């Protein structure tokens, strides 16, 4: 999953990004002003956007309106210092999916982010089960047939992304776009490395193969 943090307070943005990377296993991009934020939000397929309201150049509310106005669907979690009901209502009505008031708890921010992603992907439960595969997205723990499968952070990201859309074919480009932030070099062959790693850890010794490669199209989690 890839998250965009639009926050002009650099220190706060860094702390949020760090927390999302470490505890959520997400790829995180940071924009420190409204203009950059809007550009990045519109040019990358983020799975969730964390948006501060007080931003230079374009404020968060305008950004949200323009983002929704151009038809983008990514869930938006607004970070606001204002608690008045009117401003919250205006935010939600402008297309925000949730909000948190500053100063917030990083744990809560993480939980709300996860919830937004789950809802957006049509997976209301934090526990994703697919056949005998079980993915706990809160603990980031994977089990197959009841036994723990230990994955690397990137392998988990790939699996979680595929598991959020079971059965669907996910292209390599899509995976790259959702699993890496700006600062990473994107090599398509690393995806193949993660896929083979996943396949080895999940499917080896099992009668049913879950990770499928659809040649020329991408990958899919199928029974």
């Amino acid at each position, binding site marked *: 999953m890839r998250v965009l943090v639009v926050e002009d307070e650099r220190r706060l943005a860094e702390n949020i990004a760090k927390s999302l990377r470490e505890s959520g296993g997400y790829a995180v991009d940071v924009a420190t002003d409204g203009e950059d934020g809007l550009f990045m939000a519109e040019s990358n397929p983020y799975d969730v956007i964390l948006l501060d309201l007080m*931003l230079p150049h374009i404020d968060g509310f305008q950004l949200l309106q323009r983002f929704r106005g151009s038809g983008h669907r990514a869930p938006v979690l607004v970070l606001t*210092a204002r608690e008045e009901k009117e401003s919250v209502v205006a935010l939600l009505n402008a297309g925000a999916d949730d909000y948190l008031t500053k100063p917030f708890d990083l744990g809560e921010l993480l939980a709300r982010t996860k919830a937004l992603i789950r809802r957006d992907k049509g997976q209301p439960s934090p526990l994703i089960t697919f056949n005998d595969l079980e993915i706990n997205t809160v603990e980031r723990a994977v089990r197959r047939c009841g036994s723990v499968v230990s994955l690397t952070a990137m392998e988990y990201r790939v699996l979680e992304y595929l598991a959020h859309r079971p059965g669907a074919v996910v292209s390599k480009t899509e995976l790259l776009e959702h699993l890496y932030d700006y600062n990473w070099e994107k090599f398509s062959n690393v995806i193949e490395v993660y896929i083979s790693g996943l396949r080895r850890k999940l499917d080896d010794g099992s009668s049913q193969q879950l990770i499928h490669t659809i040649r020329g199209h991408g990958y899919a989690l199928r029974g």
Partner: protein
Amino acid sequence: MGTLSEDSVLRNSIKARLIATVVLSQVLLATGLILVGIFYTKRGLRQAFDAALHGRAMSVAALVRYPEDNQSGLIFDKSLVPTSLDSEHPDLWEVGLSDGSVFDHSSNWPAGLAMKPDGRSYWNFVWDGRPYRALLLRDVPILDQEQPKPISSPTLTLVYAATTSEMQAQLRIAGMSIAAASLFLLAATVLLAVVGIRRGLAPLQDLAARAAAVSTRNWEFQPSDAAIQTAELIPLTSAMQTMLAGLHRSFAQQREFLGNAAHELKTPVAILKSTLQSLLQKPRTSGEYQAGLQQALEDMDRLERLLQWMLRLTRAEQWAAGALRRDLQLVEVSNTCIEAMERLRPLADSRHINVELSTDGAICLRADPEDLALIWVNLLENAIRHSPEGGKIDVTLNHDHRPCALVCFEDRGSGIAASELPHVFERFHRGDPSRSRETGGFGLGLAIAKALAEAYGGTIRATSTVGQGTRMTVELPMDPTCP
């Protein structure tokens, strides 16, 4: 209200006092009317009574005549004496000659009654348990016209008395009628006065009710037309309106400041909190903990700086409002400017900005040098932040032949839009509504500069041309004892 006794409520009520005054004056008036009425009625009745007495006495006197046969002596026909005024208590009369001999008297004439007090023709006495009024007539000529009077014709002395109980009864009735009428009028006027006073005071009560409805939630104070048009209430209503408007304004300012301050405090708190939380998210090495704590400390510094600015602003404003006093000294203004420029040299140097000071002689003020330096620091910092890299800032100091010191800060930055200018000195105001933290600051610097300048009885104003730069001018009154 529990401590106020009934008595003091009445004494302290305008309405009660007015009503008491009106009632008292009406009672006095009514009493006066009754007394005067009774006095004149009594006088009139007595005059009528006296006239009747006189008439009867004269008609008794008229009964004395010379006999027709021209014999000497006088005759008196008692049977012709008119009937008494009061038949149950017959009149008393006595006819005598001026030589003192009694000629005749009424059948009921009390013997031995002292009837002739000296010098008075009318007098009162009591006889047979009845009040009587008597008339003494002396030297009444004998009214016999048939013959010329003998030269030495005797004259008559006449005493005629009648009971006054009838007159007194009339007087009583008249007095009671007057009293009744007066009391009725008194009651009517008091009632009218009470109603009138109630009506008259209604605008005051209405005003009080409307004033009582004003609260920190509802600042609406709309006095009724009656209150606005009442001459006595006009100063009160206008004073209240002015006071409420002032209160409302300062209340709104306070609330806005509090809101802004709370809002501004949230960000540094959010940063500090997130730093500490992310540190605790998973086990870290001691190096990571150290770095994290260092960061938390830096976040803390920022919070502290904001609090200090807010306190400074509050103190400057309190001082301006006269709530704080302090000792001032003679300060050479250019020294404080140099001090401010020194403090900001690192910032100016980092952006290659040249700050130039020009002054036309010594200018001194009575001030706290730290306050002056703080004003200049805030203005200069603002100028530096709005100057382009490598720009130039002019600090000009003169007194313009006025009793005021003028200090100007002129930058060649992007300028401030005319619509923004009135707000630049507001607390927590930043040029960009969703301000840029890149330029730092909390939006308090100019507000502090303004509060301090005003605390010294000075002013601060900004003029700007978009694209050319901004000029901030501080005007401070000079000390008259300055050389």
